[in-house]
């Protein structure tokens, strides 16, 4: 049988060494009425046959070329340097356990320390944790931090937060018994003046996405200031690539920055695994969920790294922990670390800049076509933008026939956005691909 190591002789020898006649003696404490005779599953396959089955399943999916994928909505096709998989596929990384024994895990601990630093640098915050599951749970964890920190029981979501993030947040809020209020925006982005009226002393945090789910740029500084006026924390859910261009949460004074790191070297993979990140001000560090790596020294004064501030965590504090998170997404965080080390500040700026230029070029060309118009013409965007389209369904199936994955139908979640498609551009949508899309839309 695959992956099993004992020969029949090994098993006999081991039973003899234990001093029992058969395996049954080792299972004698299981009540007879609970015993089953094997599993109701097919017999095992050879690797060749198993992979045949798996390949057949993969073949029943249709993948769109990266250059012809114009759909984002939280998951984006971007260039992934070969270095990323070359590192993450090393057995020394992907088959290692959580680095609880630091002397035998320095490679992992240092890589996470580098990840924490890179996220702190990108977000302009003081510290970052070792990763969370995804952007959605990162938003929920940040909200819970704010509820504990302020002792208040409401959070206010401002504007178009990713609908799946908001739904996840509402589930966590139901469990933890706090309330999620929503401040809508009629102009695509939140009017900071209007949100002032909804803020009061019961609100623990204002949560906004930058750029928001529609790709539009919020007045993050004004939203942050409004939150602070009423003693609430400002939680910014940010797109990491956008931070090459947009003001960092630390620059406008946000208290917690979270986000989804899929764009940093991870394949779409039908939605996961990706990686959530979280960064905050130093004052909040003891409220952070999940693992943290810190610098430490041995008795010969050699520098190393350890898991630290573990008194926040479930294995020490049990029901008093800041979160229940244990396993997080370390390997995805490593992918992001290698990606960011490969890109450096100039590479990241180039990726963001190319995406931005192409998206604006595409937006102009599409909006010039009959039946297309910008959904929110006065709002700014970076690389994703909402267009109002006549007959979106017919358009999307026409594009699909040409091998193009067209914009995301925002009306699926927001009735007021019926007929609005979100198109995105990355460095992989080359000018020829833009031409193909425009032509197919004409």
């Amino acid at each position: 049988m695959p992956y099993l190591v004992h020969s029949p002789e090994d098993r006999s020898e081991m039973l003899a060494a234990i001093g029992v006649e058969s395996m049954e003696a080792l299972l004698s404490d299981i009540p007879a009425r609970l015993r089953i005779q094997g599993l109701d599953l097919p017999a095992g396959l050879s690797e060749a046959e198993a992979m045949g089955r798996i390949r057949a399943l993969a073949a029943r999916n249709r993948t769109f070329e990266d250059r012809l994928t114009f759909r984002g909505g939280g998951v984006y096709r971007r260039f992934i340097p070969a270095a990323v998989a070359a590192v993450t596929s090393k057995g020394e990384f992907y088959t290692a356990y959580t680095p609880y024994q630091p002397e035998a895990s320095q490679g992992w601990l240092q890589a996470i320390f580098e990840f924490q630093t890179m996220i702190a640098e990108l977000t302009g915050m003081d510290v970052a944790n070792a990763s969370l599951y995804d952007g959605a749970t990162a938003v929920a964890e940040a909200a819970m931090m704010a509820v504990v920190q302020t002792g208040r029981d409401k959070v206010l979501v401002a504007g178009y937060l990713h609908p799946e993030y908001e739904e996840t947040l509402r589930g966590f809020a139901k469990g933890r018994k706090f309330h999620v209020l929503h401040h809508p925006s009629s102009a695509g982005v939140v009017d900071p003046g209007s949100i002032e009226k909804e803020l009061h002393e019961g609100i623990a945090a204002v949560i906004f996405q930058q750029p928001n789910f529609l790709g539009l740029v919020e007045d993050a500084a004004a939203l942050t200031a409004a939150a602070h006026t009423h003693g609430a924390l400002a939680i910014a859910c940010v797109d990491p690539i956008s931070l090459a261009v947009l003001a960092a949460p630390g620059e406008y004074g946000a208290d917690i920055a979270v986000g989804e790191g899929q764009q940093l070297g991870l394949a779409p993979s039908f939605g996961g695994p990706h990686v959530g990140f979280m960064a905050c001000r130093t004052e909040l560090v003891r409220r952070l969920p999940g693992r943290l790596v810190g610098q430490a020294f041995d008795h010969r004064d050699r520098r190393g790294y350890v898991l630290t501030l573990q008194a926040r965590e479930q294995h020490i504090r049990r029901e008093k922990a800041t979160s229940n998170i244990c396993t997080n997404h370390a390997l995805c965080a490593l992918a992001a670390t290698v990606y960011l080390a490969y890109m450096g500040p100039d590479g990241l700026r180039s990726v963001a800049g190319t995406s931005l230029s192409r998206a604006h070029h595409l937006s102009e060309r599409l909006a010039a076509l009959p039946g297309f118009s910008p959904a929110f013409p006065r709002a700014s965007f970076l690389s994703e933008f909402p267009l109002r389209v006549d007959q979106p369904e017919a358009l999307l199936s026409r594009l699909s026939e040409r091998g193009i994955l067209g914009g995301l139908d925002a009306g699926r979640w927001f009735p007021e956005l019926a007929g609005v498609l979100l198109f995105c551009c990355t460095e992989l949508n080359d000018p020829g691909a833009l031409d193909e899309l425009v032509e197919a839309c004409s």
Partner: protein
Amino acid sequence: MTEPLAFEKSRASLPGPRLPAAGVPEVAPADILPAGALRSTPPRLPRLSEPELMRHYSRLGAMNYSISKNFYPLGSCTMKYNPVVNEVAASLPGFAWLHPYQPEDTVQGALELMWDLEQALCAVVGMDRMSLQPAAGAHGEWTGLRMIQAYHEDRGDERTEVLVPDSAHGTNPASAALCGFRVVEVKSAPDGRVSLPDLEGKLNERTAAIMLTNPNTVGTFEEEILEIAEMVHAVGAKLYYDGANLNALMGICRPGDMGFDVVHLNLHKTFTTPHGGGGPGAGPVGVKHELEPFLPRPTVRKENGHYRFDQERPKSIGRVRSFYGNFGMLVRALTYILAMGGDGLSQASLDAVLAANYLRSRLDGLLEFPQPPPCKHEFVASARSLPNGIKALDLAKGLLERGFYAPTIYFPLIVPEAVMVEPTETESKATLDAFTEAVAEIVRLAQSEPDRLREEPTSLPVGRLDEVAAARNPVLRWSPRAAD
């Protein structure tokens, strides 16, 4: 040898990597955004050439212990071999490049895979339906408890307490608290099993659920599980199964038959998806029919050979994360299940139990064992009888010095100087014998040269690190020196 940080190797003069040029009229951020929206200083990411980058992370990798190198005796972690073909399967373009918001008719293979995995996992644990959404075991626990909470609420039954044994994994009480429950601890009997008299006194109409691991964390089977289930159900509470220890039971017995109403699994334990240095894992959660309406949405539905997402679930607790789960991990788990089959999974559990009992018998006399044999897939020893004040921690570090990883130590909390060992089915007898030799040598050193032992490890990149000082004055990131 230690390795400088990527930031310390960075050179300011190095140009960035070559990337696609826009090829369309360039738009500067300042042309489209107000000045206040722009970043003022770039992030201080390292600037490295690709050769330097590859060498840097290769060197870091070389400093790690991993299952591809040797044995992890970590109790409750099920560090078994990660089949390499699983990695090939997950990286097939037909999976890796799927966008989560593609039309359903273009992702039929992915939905079928999720359906097949759900059926297979349900068969292993004896449950009716399963959600594949949770990203990890603790996330599965929270999801399961949220469903139990919703179930009681739906019946107009306000229940506020969750019972957790004192031997439980730390995630159990943490997940219950995160769900807004009051955590009530149930005492263990001297043999490590749940104390029925104590349980009886703590069960009442406020009890929403009890969370149990079976085999429990000392590695013994809860023989009275059927009686426990009857007591719990008699007060209207639900039984929650923490699947961390499922590796002992596949094909032998099923949590669903024991009376458990909700089960979470750790695909990164029992079903060989790699630990990745701390994730990503996957924590599917299964339920009996009664709790099915509360499953996170969407679930996968099969209709006339066609698969679709079922979003219209009015009693659902809603989604617990973005998209549909750690899909890449689901691919790996199904690949493993196909290769193993029902016969292989059953033999895996038998071999896991065999390996644990064998290793336990080999270590008998070297360490103290609070519980009598047999154990199931893991056992707990105590280092308290080691001489000269040698602790479980010293034993752990001594094992690192001798080329092994350390067992789980100081857990479960009910055993002093606990040393928790889980060998799994993928370690050979020769490896277990070599591990025994290493423990024997450490026990000898504890008698003859305890101070030498307290200095170990000496042959790894760093010696014992001062974790107390690290926590007192935390340095959680690199910062450029003031002079730079």
